[in-house]
């Protein structure tokens, strides 16, 4: 057992922390929440310049570090409440290509992501909002050397900023819904793709995508045509644990804000942090934050070692989802009315934490998964 970060992880952590405190002030956060794309090419280039866009991409494709390095960086991004297509591209897009792509596809897309030249989104969910295989119904019909896509995708992240979409589509109906699923990558500007941005409370950018007779070459299929679900399953596992890391950062920062406030706010002649009602609440927040981090790191480490992590990832997403909710609620209570205002930064954290909670399956979804390991 070893719970310490290694030198490289510590370096990535402080690199990300410094970068975000310089480039991503509260003012920028507020702008990005309102911004339609939640993205500026300038900031993206700066991220690429310090190699953050290449995180967890193998060196041969121009990347740096491993999944654990990415995890510590995402924790920092959570602390900053970072609104950006970073997660979408580096976690979802890059993972999909690494999991399913051929050597040629990896050479085509991964260096471009690492260099900050490409933003790639992943379109899995549809109108049900479910992450289960039966929810994938967008049709992919083969026509010669092309697939013709028809249908709609919902809650597609950062599509307005993206150059490419990786789309999960159904090639055939099968009694096993995991069969007949295809992953295919296409240019965002290909005719027939229509993007409708949704408005979210957290400022995370999500879209509805409709596909009308969209023609994509079979060369763009990622991996084996019928085995898309196996890839999605693994991508979702990583995405979930990565989300947890972000939430750990969100919770840590909310706790830090609550502590600062509890130390300076005076009531009845004392800082409110001296009152046990506040102290004990904060103690529980620390358990939630540290517990979230441990359960996240455990799953991340297993994934990084290519060991089975299904149970641990489910436990992480279920527990962290609930813990971050408790932490946010307590942070608001400690802040009193000031934290209830739109001017204060805290509500951005609360809203982002709730967004994270529901992405890639909420606590209940992962509790179900966890139970299957307890039979």
């Amino acid at each position, binding site marked *: 057992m070893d719970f310490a970060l290694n030198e490289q992880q510590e370096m990535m952590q402080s690199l990300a922390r410094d970068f975000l405190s310089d480039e991503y002030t509260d003012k920028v956060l507020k702008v990005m929440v309102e911004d339609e794309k939640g993205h500026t090419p300038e900031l993206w280039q700066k991220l690429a310049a310090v190699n953050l866009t290449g995180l967890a991409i193998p060196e041969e494709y121009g990347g740096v570090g491993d999944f654990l390095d990415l995890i510590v960086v995402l924790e920092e991004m959570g602390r900053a409440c970072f609104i950006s297509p970073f997660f979408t591209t580096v976690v979802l897009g890059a993972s999909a290509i690494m999991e399913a792509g051929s050597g040629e596809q990896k050479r085509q897309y991964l260096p471009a992501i690492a260099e900050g030249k490409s933003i790639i989104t992943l379109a899995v969910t549809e109108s049900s909002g479910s992450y289960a295989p039966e929810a994938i119904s967008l049709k992919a019909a083969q026509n010669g050397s092309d697939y013709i896509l028809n249908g709609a995708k919902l809650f597609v992240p950062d599509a307005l900023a993206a150059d490419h979409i990786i789309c999960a589509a159904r090639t055939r109906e099968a009694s096993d819904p995991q069969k007949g699923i295809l992953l295919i990558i296409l240019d965002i500007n290909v005719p027939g793709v229509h993007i409708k941005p949704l408005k979210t409370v957290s400022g995370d950018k999500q879209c509805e995508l409709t596909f009308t007779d969209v023609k994509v070459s079979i060369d763009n299929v990622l991996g084996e045509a019928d085995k898309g679900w196996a890839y999605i399953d693994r991508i979702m596992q990583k995405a979930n644990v990565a989300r947890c890391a972000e939430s750990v950062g969100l919770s840590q920062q909310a706790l830090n804000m609550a*502590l600062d406030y509890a130390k300076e706010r005076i009531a009845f002649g004392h800082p409110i942090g001296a009152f046990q009602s*506040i*102290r004990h609440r904060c*103690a529980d927040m620390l*358990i939630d934050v540290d517990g979230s981090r441990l359960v996240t*790191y455990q799953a991340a*480490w297993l994934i990084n070692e290519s060991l089975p992590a299904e149970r641990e990832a489910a436990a992480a997403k279920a527990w962290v989802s609930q813990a971050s909710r408790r932490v946010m609620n307590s942070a608001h209570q400690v802040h009193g009315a000031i934290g209830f205002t739109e001017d204060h930064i805290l509500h951005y954290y609360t809203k982002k934490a709730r967004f994270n909670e529901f992405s890639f399956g909420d606590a209940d979804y992962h*509790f179900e998964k966890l139970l299957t390991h*307890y*039979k």
Partner: protein
Amino acid sequence: MDFVFTPEEEAFRQEVASFLDKEVPKIYREKKLTFFDMSSQEDWIQVHRSMAEKLGEKGWISLHWPREYGGQDKSPFHRLILREELTRYHSPGYDSIGAGIVAPALLLKGSDEQKKQHLPGIASGKVIWCETLSEPGHGSDLASIEVFAKEETDCFVVNGQKIWTTNGHFADWNALVTRTDREVDPKYRGLTFFLVDMKTPGITVNPIINMAGHHEFNEVFFDDVHIPKGNIVGGLNRGFYVVMSLLDYERTSDTVYAFADIYLKDLAGYARKNNLLTPVLESRMAQLIADCEVARLLHYYVTWMQSQDKVPNYESAMSKMYSFELNQRVAEFGMELLGQYSQLTEASPLVPMYGRIPSCYYRSFGYSLEQGTSEIDRDVIAQRGLGLPRLR
């Protein structure tokens, strides 16, 4: 980062498991007893002692001690693995106070002579310890200790009453904290830590039965009890510092998460076999499973700190409090699961799970009180972990 045990640690786990598979009395395994409810068994003290001696013969109690004191310099994860396996095999035999608290305190603050005198006994499993800290008038507020040790030329003479003394009714030795200076301010600078032979004349032990019907703790009276001066640990009037370092160990001596986990598995097995799991109960169980995972990691973290020679403090309060409160939730879950049947005692016809449901549940009321109350733990976390100001 690394979340697995070393091959050597895994081999040790195997060795312990196959040993326990042979040695643990059948009835303990059949009833699936846990550390906190096995004292309900009539033969518990006898089994506890004999298992302790067997573990001692194996050298397992002192594995993580330095070689010069009979240990093998193994990582503290060996102690954790031993406790996990004892839990899994429903075995008594680990003296939480002697091996868990007194030994680390002696290693840290004891004189060479004290180490040589007491560590071999603890390592052998033949000398069982108790600790007397709490008094009828003072529980959490240690600094207010009143039991007084009066200095004579060659010894100290102790008079007064202690209470909530776990295992006091059969322990051979006692870690005692008394007042030795009544004038000093702050009061905590007038406390001294003694090692006391329980056979010393003047010590009377009376049982206190807890609300689960178990006899674990006692009240202990000291009537002109003479203690040699050489039995002071950490120096005269410096007992508070010994206690503080000792509490950091006490809070993680027991693998409480493992007790919760094994009981939850026991409940889950019973529920599935008898078709008791409604969707609502199943959802509650899933929550507890995830909580067990976090409790385990919090404890591993503290053990890892110890393995790095870091002294945990608020981290152990976090781990201890979270695990104990989790145990309470698991015990409550057991009651909900069994419904009307939860009301039956072991002596009743039709009783499920040997009457352990109410036994574990009513025992669990102590979990937020013992080894420091949950309130004290949260205060420790707020103060030492978060740097929040104090009212006092």
